[in-house]
């Protein structure tokens, strides 16, 4: 089969299970395509030889009862992988080789998948365009010099370009959903506490969640089922009854109440986003859902609150990079000088900016004015959602306020870059699940996404709505292979 990489995860699993394809054939196909796709710069670390070996071993004694039997997969370089370099897109972790495995990736290997390599991302997941990575820009396969979104930009690029059948990202303020939207792919941010954070390089601990990124909703659902487990190694992991999401996936969403929040009609939103949203509402109605207008009055305060909470937690989390225990070290005249030079040379500009913001808002005399204030606003935002969910089962919004932009277009203006996450950030602040599905194209032919936000722990419901709408939308990505050599 020459078109192995064009198959969805579900098709590949089926073909391996009924022995039409071997893991070696599948792995070889994705490795070859990845090797021809270096121009995308989607990978930071390749592990192809090991992947091919593991595939061969799998084929010698295939366990076809597993959920991801012999499926090759590249993952975001924020997940610690035992014995394979994990950089978080940073110079400061350039030579870091974990001696342990993240729970989420361990869950994936336990179901038979095979690691192909580590995918590029914004440094410490701080960015919306993958331009803050120490390892360079990632190209969006949709068009040359277009950003793939961020921070999971290597992941979105690799899935859209079919270098990996599926992948995982992390989402602190939109880092799965925004890149999914920019590349015409599907990305789910699960409820906070659904997927273990153990072994994920920390950014903002009260917001970070791992989640699946895929070419379609069915594949996304299968991977969510694999990665979502209770884990006692993460004290914020929640022990709730998890569905067998893929078994319970259904397109029957008749009578589901879907809320449309008027506050998401932001000033200066392009008409094509507004039109996409209207189309989305019609698709939802076609699926039998009932549309209800709702209000989330504190939406406008989500981003400012986020830019206190996330940097504050980041400044605390990133204090561990001191050049002593692991990672990059710069020589200094004394201990303090060594710390300061290590961090100044080891972190990139955006990370330093956020550490400084976080340090400032937590510093003596400013805590109440900033961090405490932001935590109170966060409560108001969560209350908005709680109120809305008395009336509706889910909420439909655009995923992003624009389509993908050009590399370099927004790098000089941090605030305009932050505005990318205006529709995704409230979901993290409230700890809710949200999924982005591709829903159309703008005038330039670039993909646009719609976001479905659910109640806490109600992933099944938003997956079902996404599954039903996906069929009506019938989205096709325009991928021309322009980068293939």
């Amino acid at each position, binding site marked *: 089969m020459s078109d192995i990489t064009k198959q969805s995860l579900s098709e590949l699993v089926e073909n391996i299970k009924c022995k039409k394809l071997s893991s070696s054939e599948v792995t070889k196909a994705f490795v070859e395509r990845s090797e021809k796709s270096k121009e995308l710069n989607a990978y930071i670390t390749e592990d192809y030889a090991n992947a091919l070996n593991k595939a061969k071993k799998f084929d010698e004694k295939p366990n076809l009862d597993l959920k991801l039997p012999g499926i090759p997969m590249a993952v975001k370089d924020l997940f610690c992988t035992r014995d394979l370099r994990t950089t978080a897109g940073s110079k400061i972790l350039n030579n870091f080789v974990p001696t342990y495995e993240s729970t989420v990736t361990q869950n994936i290997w336990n179901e038979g998948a095979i690691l192909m390599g580590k995918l590029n991302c914004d440094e410490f997941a701080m960015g919306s365009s993958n331009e803050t990575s120490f390892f360079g820009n990632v190209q969006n396969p949709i068009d040359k010099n277009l950003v793939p979104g961020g921070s999971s930009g290597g992941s979105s690029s690799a899935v859209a370009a079919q270098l990996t059948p599926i992948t995982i990202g992390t989402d602190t303020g939109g880092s799965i959903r925004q890149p999914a939207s920019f590349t015409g792919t599907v990305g789910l941010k699960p409820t906070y506490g659904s997927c273990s954070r153990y072994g994920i390089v920390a950014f903002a601990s009260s917001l970070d969640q791992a989640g699946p990124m895929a070419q379609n909703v069915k594949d996304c659902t299968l991977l969510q089922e694999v990665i979502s487990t209770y884990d006692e190694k993460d004290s914020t992991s929640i022990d709730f009854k998890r569905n067998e999401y893929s078994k319970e996936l259904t397109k029957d969403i008749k009578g589901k109440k879907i809320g449309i929040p008027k506050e998401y009609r932001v000033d200066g939103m392009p008409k094509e986003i507004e039109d996409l949203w209207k189309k989305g509402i019609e698709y939802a109605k076609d699926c039998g859902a009932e549309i209800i207008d709702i209000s989330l009055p504190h939406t406008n305060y989500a981003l400012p609150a986020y*830019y*206190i909470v996330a940097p504050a937690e980041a400044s605390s989390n990133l204090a561990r990079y001191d050049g002593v225990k692991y990672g990059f070290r710069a020589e200094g005249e004394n201990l303090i000088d060594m710390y300061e030079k290590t961090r100044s040379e080891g972190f990139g500009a955006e990370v330093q900016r956020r550490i400084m913001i976080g340090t400032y808002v937590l510093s003596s005399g400013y805590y109440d004015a900033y961090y405490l204030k932001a935590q109170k606003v966060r409560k108001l935002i969560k209350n908005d959602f709680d109120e809305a969910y008395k009336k509706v089962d889910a909420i439909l919004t655009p995923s992003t306020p624009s389509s993908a932009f050009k590399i370099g277009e927004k790098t000089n203006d941090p*605030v305009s870059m932050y505005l990318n996450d205006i529709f995704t950030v409230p979901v993290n602040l409230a700890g809710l699940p949200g999924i982005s599905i591709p829903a159309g194209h703008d005038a330039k032919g670039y993909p646009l996404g719609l976001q479905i936000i659910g109640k806490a722990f109600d992933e099944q419901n938003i997956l079902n709505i996404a599954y039903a709408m996906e069929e009506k939308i019938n989205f096709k990505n325009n991928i021309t292979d322009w980068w293939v050599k």
Partner: protein
Amino acid sequence: MSIDLKTIKHISKLSRISVDEKKAEKLAGDLNSIFDFIEKLNELKTDNVEPLTSVAETTLKLRSDEVKSKNLRDQVIKNSPKENEDYFVVPKVIE
């Protein structure tokens, strides 16, 4: 609200990130535009609002206090930039 160079120097010291004059000026500009954006929160009255400390309304699980890992000394030291036998090495602190 304005963050001046003196404040930048202070935060840089607290953050253990060295900044030279040029970098300090750039950071002051960036931080001022970000804080202008953050100031929007002051429009909201929040006197009687409880701060949200955890999105999940659960209490932390307790577990028994027992050692589960074996001796991980080699693993712990494996990635250190400079070590001497079982110790991390840093520049001399005490004369």
